[in-house]
């Protein structure tokens, strides 16, 4: 991904994570800004299905050639699916952070938490 983009159908956490909410389930990933700051991602430590995640707390780690960084959960719930394909090709997180580079799917425990998240424009404004 060469150009910054922040799709309007996603919700954003100020720690550079996105959530695509569909009813009581959501998909999580990291934003274009996050992957660009990290540089080439070399490892994604997949959390186990069934693990509880808490909004604003770290739920996994991503390692790039520069550093290891915590990934912050934008919403609370229980992990129901993990993107296992990232095990062999973690660079997908750089190449397609909003598509094939998704990290986990979560069954939300409190969908109302999404009211605290930012929309595309508000998140983009935090970056300038």
């Amino acid at each position, binding site marked *: 991904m060469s150009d910054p983009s922040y799709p309007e159908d996603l919700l954003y956490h100020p720690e550079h994570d996105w959530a695509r909410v569909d009813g009581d389930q959501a998909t999580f990933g990291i934003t274009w800004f996050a992957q660009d700051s990290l540089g080439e991602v070399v*490892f994604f*430590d997949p*959390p*186990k299905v*069934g*693990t509880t995640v808490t909004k604003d707390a770290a739920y996994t780690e991503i*390692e790039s050639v520069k*550093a*290891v960084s*915590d990934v912050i959960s934008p919403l609370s719930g229980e992990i129901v699916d993990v993107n296992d394909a990232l095990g062999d090709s973690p660079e997908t997180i750089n190449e397609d952070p909003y598509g094939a580079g998704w990290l986990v799917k979560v069954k939300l425990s409190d969908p109302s938490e999404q009211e605290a998240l930012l929309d595309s424009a508000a998140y983009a404004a935090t970056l300038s």
Partner: protein
Amino acid sequence: MSRYTPASESDRGEMLRAIGVKSIDALFADIPAHLRLAGPLELDAGKSELEVFEELKALAARNTSAEDELSFLGAGMYDHYVPALVDSIVSRSEFLTPYTPYQPEVSQGGLQAMFEYQTAICELTGLPISNASVYEGPSAVAAAGYVAKLANSSPPTRARFVVSRGVHPHSREALATLAHGWGMEVVEAPLHDGITELPALDDQVSAVIVQQPNFLGAVEDLEALAGAAHAAGALCIAACDPLPLSVLRAPGECGVDVAVGEGQTLGNRLDFGGPSFGFFAATEALIRRVPGRIAGETVDVEGKRGFVLTLQTREQHIRREKATSNICTAQALNALAGVIYLSWLGRHGIVELTELMLQRTAYARERLGAIDGVHLLHDQPVVREFAITLDAPVPAVIERCAAQGVNPGYALHRDYPEHENGLLVAITEKRTRADIDRLAETLKGAVAAERSQDAHHVGVH
């Protein structure tokens, strides 16, 4: 004023005025008066350099070095011959003087040495991954425990280590000390007839930790132990003596997940207990949990063979404040001695050396076991060390032998109160058949003397 004090009286006065404090004593006002030193320490006046030298020389003369007696002391550190080749190479300033040989600007020669070291450790352990070494054996065991903790960080969290009583006491202590901080419980598995008897394992066990051969010299059935660990979903960690690995089945082939150990016997002398190095090998599944660094082979832009630091996933320059491993001092020099020693021995030499130890150990075990008042502590197969029990107080027997220039071994009661009369006897290639005969005669005399003295004490003839 002492010449070692960099600030003068006026410097100090100026600093105190700048921070608004009347005196240096006032800086210590928060420490209750009764805890503060009221006067100077009661120390002798300073001595001249010559006097200090003489005093230290007299103190050093009270040591008995392994060169001064016929030593059968082992218990984790062993008196092997270190060829001059090792000193000749490790003394090269390129290896000897770097402050920390793991910096990003590490030399190609340093990296190549690490790579070759790792290759040797992988071959010895039968595991695909080796790091560039850690500090010593006991901390390697504890570090392996942490790898098991990391591998089990998702539920079930498995907050328990099961550690064989046959693991070196220092390793068990190091693990217990660190496990406390990790919120992990350490449970000991007892030894039965010299080998580990595992308790029932449940889904709270993170790792089963054993030693090969164990502290009493016995060869453990690693395959069965690893199988039991895996059946409970736990990892199997084996602390191994590296030379015996040349004749025993490799831990990797037995299903061991992490093989670690003390590297002293590979080209490092006893040196009063250190420094040495520890080795650390693991399965590929654990590669990102391994502490320290892993050097790798690659090609440069011109296609020429070269070496790089491939992985250091837990170190500070990758993880910053979240680092959980810090292996960075010149213990790489001791590991270098290890790979030089292994290269010197070669594939066949290491087997020959260990077979020599096997034969001499078998001879010594037979000779000592035949002495009146001496019994074998267990009948398990051994490689380089074995345990006996004496019908006499061990410390007194050791004293009697020492008076004749023989150190018969390690008094087991120091770490194993259940073996009050136990003695651990180690053999290296430096102990000849004649040396073993001398040990047998000396021990026989010492045991007989103690028994007759004991008989006199109770008034029996």
